[in-house]
């Protein structure tokens, strides 16, 4: 971080004056301030408030009294919460893995000029353009037992005999499929951009050296793509982990995720406000840990290092 190292050359006492005394720098801070203020007020302050709430027996109507970790124990013993947790984890792992593999395959495949490339790119963007909620409504209509084409085909070919919308297992599989349909294109795009930055000469050199396709892929492509891969994976993982729209609308509240558990607790039921809040904090902490894992352990760079 060159800015920081440049500044540390100055005397310690001087930095405050340097930062805020210089009109140009002051302007910069003024310009950044509104965004920061909004973010802190609307996002971070409520999280603190949420943590406080989770330690009390408040309801939506009024502030309650301090009850320590009671809400958390209740939450961890609630079968709905555990179901939501397991669904969310399965959903996240499976859909991100599928999206990555398929997305990478697509990116590799279309990383060259061919006829109809524009059409393919357009087709790739169509699922992405859908509001998640609309996609959920659409797919629900297709899974529906009476008017749904997919249910019909699945029953007719004897793949599935149960109504898809009744079985929690099938619903989870369906949700994963819909998410893969919707988001793989986006993954593919990100990875494609990463691929296109790799200069062709590198491959030429490798081929001259006698490397075959597999070796070229694992020794050249993947390492050079690492940055883009990590960014894509992190965003998708956290997106999947927070899944709410898809589950709520497509399964008509039947399928539980961590986020739907929170929503049900704080907005639908009257007595589950406490565990709902505890779950909010749980999601926040675990999401933070996941991000930390990617950044520290997997070595993802945040885009701030640029001067």
């Amino acid at each position, binding site marked *: 971080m060159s800015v920081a190292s440049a500044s540390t050359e100055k005397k310690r006492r001087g930095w405050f004056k340097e930062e805020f005394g210089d009109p140009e720098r002051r302007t910069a801070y003024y310009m950044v301030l509104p965004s920061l203020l*909004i973010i802190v007020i609307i996002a971070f302050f*409520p999280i603190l408030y949420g943590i406080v709430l989770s330690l009390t027996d408040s309801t939506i109507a009024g502030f309650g009294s301090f009850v320590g970790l009671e809400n958390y124990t209740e939450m961890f013993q609630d079968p709905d919460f555990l179901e939501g947790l397991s669904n969310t984890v399965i959903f996240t792992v499976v859909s991100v893995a599928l999206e990555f593999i398929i997305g990478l395959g697509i990116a590799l495949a279309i990383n060259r000029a061919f006829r109809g490339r524009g059409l393919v790119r357009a087709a790739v963007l169509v699922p992405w353009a859908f509001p998640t909620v*609309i996609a959920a409504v*659409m797919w629900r209509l297709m899974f529906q037992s009476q008017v749904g084409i997919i249910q019909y085909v699945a029953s007719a070919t004897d793949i599935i005999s149960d109504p898809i919308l009744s079985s929690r297992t099938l619903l989870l599989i369906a949700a994963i499929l819909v998410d893969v349909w919707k988001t793989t294109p986006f993954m593919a795009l990100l990875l494609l951009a*990463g691929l296109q930055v790799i200069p062709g000469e590198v491959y030429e050199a490798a081929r001259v050296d006698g490397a075959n396709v597999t070796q070229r892929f694992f020794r050249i492509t993947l390492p050079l793509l690492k940055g883009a891969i990590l960014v894509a994976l992190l965003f998708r993982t956290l997106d999947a982990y927070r899944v709410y729209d898809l589950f709520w609308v497509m399964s008509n509240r039947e399928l539980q995720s961590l986020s739907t558990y929170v929503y049900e607790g704080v907005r639908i039921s009257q007595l589950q406000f406490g565990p709902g809040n505890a779950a909010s904090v749980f999601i926040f902490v675990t999401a933070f840990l996941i*991000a930390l894992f990617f950044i520290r352990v997997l070595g993802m760079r945040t885009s701030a290092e640029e001067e």
Partner: protein
Amino acid sequence: MASATTTGRTSGRGTLGTVLFYVFLVIFVLVSVFPLLWIFKMSIVSKTELFASPPTILPHTPTSAEYAQIFSDPAFQQALVNSTIISAVTTVICLFFGSLTAYAIARMRFRFKSPIMTLILAISFFPAVAIIAPLFIQYSQVGLINTYASVIITDTVFALPLTIWLLVAFFRELPVDLEDAAKVDGATTIQAFRKVIVPLAAPGVFTTAILTFIFAWNEFLFANTFLLDQATQPVTVAIPNFATVYTVDYGAQAAAAVVVTVPLVILVLIFQRRIVSGLTAGAVKG
């Protein structure tokens, strides 16, 4: 934007490879587009055909009754208006604050840039569901529940990282000494701004505006939590609830889904180059 030249590495695939490749592409395109086509078909058939078993592939009894119904439905019209207002205002506000911030980060020097960027980035990882309860309570206390403001403010916060990220990437592309060069040529600052910076930055800002608008348009969680009736609910909340007291109208839902999605799809298709370059610029250069 990465160029569209070939970087073909694997050569000599042969005819079989090419055929397989194109088959794969066709399947891929079909899978991407099929749901939209199917729902469109559902929206133009009569109610009885809708429930036909086995389902028909091509419409036997096409009708525009569903579209007539939803377009004359004041609730749907209101939902469209609500979505447009919320998305537009959110976009404007995001561009305003976001461009200030992005410009500062991209073009100016100051000490806490890195922590600030991290903080902003953290919002895109932020589980929004974690704050709906505290926000609901706070908004109730100031009487913002069931007003556009509650959703606009919250959407702005969550759209800002995207806006800032994109604008930073675009601003970084502008030549560093552009402003100074223009002034050396005798332009006043305002002229330099208008004639040099704006034209160059416009495409970036425009793309950012589109992506931010789409983000706000698609938002569901906050709208569902803070907006309680038809006067304020956007299409994302209204369409899944297309219901009378007794039944859900599948044909109308399908029609509404088509109406809401097709403009977005057209928008995305027209501006696909810009959008793709915008989305990937940050990822690659970051």
